[in-house]
């Protein structure tokens, strides 16, 4: 817990992965933020992910 408290006492620099709305929220309050576009493979479809694994 100590480390988390320490984190929030510093200036934040955020890397956001996935949903872009979190990125835009951080930017709107002027927190330096980098957005990484990411989606689960095959839209999260487990059957297709299994096929893709076999076809690597």
């Amino acid at each position: 817990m100590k480390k988390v408290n320490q984190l929030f006492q510093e200036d934040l620099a955020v890397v956001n992965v996935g949903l872009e709305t979190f990125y835009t929220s951080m930017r709107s309050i002027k927190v330096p933020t980098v957005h990484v576009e990411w989606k689960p493979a095959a839209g999260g479809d487990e059957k297709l992910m299994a096929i893709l694994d076999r076809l690597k």
Partner: protein
Amino acid sequence: MRVDINRANEEGLRRINEGQPVLVDVVYAKDVLPGMAKNVIGHAGPPLDWDDMCGPLKGAIIGAIKYEGLATDDAEAEALVKRGEIKFVSNHSMGAVGPMTGMVSYSMPLYHVKNETFGNDAYCTFNEGLGKVMRFGANGKEVLDRLEWMEKTLAPALKAAIAETGPINLRVLMSQALAMGDEMHQRNIAASLLFGKSILPAIAKLVDDRTDRERITQFITGNEQFFLNLAMAAGKAIMDPVKDIEGCTLVTAMSRNGTNFGIKISALGDQWFEAPVNMPKGLYFPGYSADDANPDIGDSTILETIGLGGFTMGAAPAVVRFVGAESVDAAIQYTNDMLEITAGQSPTWQMPTMNFEGAPTGIDIRKVVETGILPTINTGMAHKEPGIGQVGAGIVEAPMDCFVKALVQFSESLED
């Protein structure tokens, strides 16, 4: 032994990049297409029945029947269809392609493009120009008269001119046009001018009749999309040798019949994987709106299949506004996205606006399904009623279901 998919795809990419499509002749469908007969009509996209066809496709077919002299009016032509006397064939199965409705019939002249590396042949009709044309479903006298002139005057002149100039290497010409801002699907201004530069001196030399010479010159230089059909024949010639590579998951054809979008992949030969076509999003000509547009149609997606069109939008800033993209940055992003779903890049189709990066080449269905990024297509939009013509241009995505179906079937084929 387990098939090595990555090695198979490297072979597919090699064949795409080493293909040398060369315009060698002008021929007639009746003389070269397998199974062609007076009552056979080739159309764009995967095969489909009359009852499932959209308005422009039905209108074009009625026009083609009249053009071949099998009927004198629309009712008579439709009656022939209803009696089952007209046979419909997917152009791709005859080694041919055609834009929009893609009509190919017995008497029509075709470009003959040979892939000099692999020795195969591909064919495409001539571009009719804009306005009321058969590829958008128009079938009136003006349309049929123009087609007859193309058959009897333009085709012999082009045939003689190509014999005079010798074969024209289309990969080289398309590389130059790409560097001049064409993506060769919705923008063919540079390519059409480069082709005119190659062919018109021979036309001037060989066509004696002044009226014919003037009309041919105007027809070629007055149509900014004149080259589209040549680019499509080149695309077909490039992609056919990529078929039937064991274990290869690269797309060899994408096409739409106005009802369904179909793809083929190398390992599964000539099997189509289909899903309902999407509606393009873009800009409409004055007086038209989305309510007027027909869903996506045409064999012209062979251009995206070889890495041009929407795949090289980043190299064609001038097409951005025409297809309704927001900005040049957005166009570059489209091209970057296509790099995520392709096996490699073209060594010859380089994009000056993107530091001479090669065009994204060889769509891998595994990458499409994994990333969820769909092939981006630049396309014209036809009016949903036959005969009105083009109502706008835009961007459309291939439907994901085609790629999922192909992937599942490919996976099952490895278990057999």
